[in-house]
């Protein structure tokens, strides 16, 4: 079922504001001395966090306006936001909160404009879509954390590649363990 005309129109009308507030809220999770930089440095290579956030939020808001959430659009966009937060100094809930907060921002702008009960039903549907984004985010977060764990193991193996090989050849206990 797709969003009816009215809600879509109200959402579209507030799209810019909602996006801006969402970006501001995400930037707001960083130290106040960092926010200016995140906001103003436009070069994507000099400010990856700011630029990824800006691009991903626009893509996600547009995706929410589509009838169906398209995984090919949504997954990479959620990834841009969550992959960074998965290695920054955030707890899991703090890392994920940036997706959920979109609900409050949307409500703030849209609820005062709603009159008919069908429109409220539409809003609930929209919120379900945000839940879906959050689920995608949850999966990505878990994958990132798993990957970090795996990277630790792989790194050990690479570092001791030749020693492990030598150990195999002479059939002794593995040599070169980092700790004794």
């Amino acid at each position, binding site marked *: 079922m797709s969003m009816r005309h009215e809600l879509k129109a109200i959402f579209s009308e507030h799209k810019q504001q909602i996006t801006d507030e969402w970006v501001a809220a995400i930037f707001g999770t960083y130290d106040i001395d960092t926010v200016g930089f995140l906001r103003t440095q436009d070069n*994507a290579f000099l400010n990856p*966090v700011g630029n990824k956030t800006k691009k991903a939020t626009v893509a996600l808001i547009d995706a929410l306006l589509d009838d169906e959430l398209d995984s090919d659009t949504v997954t990479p966009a959620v990834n841009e936001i969550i992959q960074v937060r998965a290695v920054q100094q955030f707890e899991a809930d703090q890392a994920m909160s940036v997706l*959920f907060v979109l609900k409050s921002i949307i409500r703030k702008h849209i609820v005062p404009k709603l009159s008919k009960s069908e429109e409220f039903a539409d809003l609930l549907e929209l919120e379900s879509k945000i839940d879906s984004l959050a689920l995608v985010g949850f999966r990505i977060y878990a994958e990132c954390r798993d990957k970090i764990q795996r990277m630790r193991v792989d790194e050990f193996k690479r*570092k001791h590649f030749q020693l492990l090989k030598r150990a195999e050849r002479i059939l002794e206990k593995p040599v070169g363990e980092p700790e004794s």
Partner: protein
Amino acid sequence: MAKIPSPEELMQVSYDMPRENWMDTKPEITEGAVAYPAKKVTMEPLGMPNPHDWNPFEEDWHLPENWEEIIYNGLKERLEKYRSLKLFMDICVRCGACADKCHYFIGSGDPKNMPVLRAELLRSVYRKDFTTAGKILGKLAGARKLDKDVIKEWFYYFYQCTECRRCSLYCPYGIDTAEITMMARELLHELGLGLHWIMDPVSNCNRTGNHLGITPHAFKEIVEFLCEDIEEVTGISINPTFNEPGHEVLFITPSGDAFAEPGIYTFMGYLMLFEEIGLDYTLSTYASEGGNFGLFTSSSMMKKLNAKMYAEAERLGSKWILGGECGHMWRVINQYMSTMNGPAPSCMETPVSPITGTVFENAAETKMVHIAEFTADLIKHNKIRLDPSRNDHLNVTYHDSCNPARAMGLMDEPREVLKAACNNFYEMPENTIREQTFCCGAGSGLNTDEIMEIRMRGALPRGNALRHVQEKHGVNMMSCVCAIDRATLPPLADYWAPGVDVSGMHELVANALVMKGEKKRTMDLRQEELPGMEDE
């Protein structure tokens, strides 16, 4: 009952946040926030001051009784010894040009990772004790009292600086935050505070000459394994000499090239190149490490560990030293070696390529040539035959390692070599390469897995640029001339640009190298089938 916070509360969304002065906020030192400490058993035999066992996650770091006096005297001594330090402490006008240039700031968003604030951590203490204004005005003049939390903060932030010097490139006064970090780390070492990941390799180097503590016979055996693999791939048998006097060249490379994947393929590349051009060289099992973690410890340790290079050249009667693909090794050689360990032994001469006759005037002082220069010169004079089509399945980019790029200006040679060895070469965006290159995120001894998250934050700017060329040009190989990079870039790529592999430069050179008497190459040095050249 403990209330579960809402998303808003978790995000602390509040637009009128009380602004604390940076001096009043403290880092939270929890698991993953700092690397593991060096142990007493490691520090003591090295003669490091105040060796003790301690745990950064506990409140008490067991500092020596007179720790304040140690810091005060240590700082005083260094201010007198290094005029640069005094200048760096005095002349910063806090213009902010360096503020957003650090990969750790960019990736973490933590303002104390802005180089200007990182330096301020030391400068504030300097002001308090060494400037008149600071003594009188205190905090108003940006001065603060030294307390134990300041020491913790130093440990936290000076080990989130990879001494990469990107920030100094943008400072109108040329203030080098990397050197400030070095001084701060020296001061921390005075208190017996160091990292396991740095001091363990230092201790191993001190004992056996290389980071992993490999003994001479094992080193030789491991190099021989590589020769077996070369024979498998090329049909050519190579028997390098070890510790043999009377050869023109002594070859020294980071031990990671002999021991670690993917560095070993680059080591195989060196051996194949030397064989092909008939270089008169030997390997030393004592100077079996080009890397020098003393650089991340103290000037005296750096000097001690570096001394083996000239000592071995003298013992073996070498005319000059050819050095392998390394980053910080070349910072040590290029910037400090002749002052620290010079003059070179009298048997040594200004390096001349025996193949092309090129005189490496730039190495007249140290007598050491970087292999990227050496090979670029061979290629320029058409002295080796390369078949770059063997690398056609690779779309290659080049990561400028901080030290070769910013500490020795080695930027064109590696590119010339790669373009000769590969048909598909693509640069990453201009503001992320050459002098402006972004660090791998784990140089200067931070390449340890317990801080993998911190490393990945620092790796973001490089990883992001890499992903860009991956998407745009299908880049699937990032080449570099640094052994630390060959260890740190694989996880970087794995996290930020999965699907991109990492190689040293000479791995790609050797894959393309047409050797006299070789069999038809069907495999690359990793013994993976070369597309289009499989056995019929």
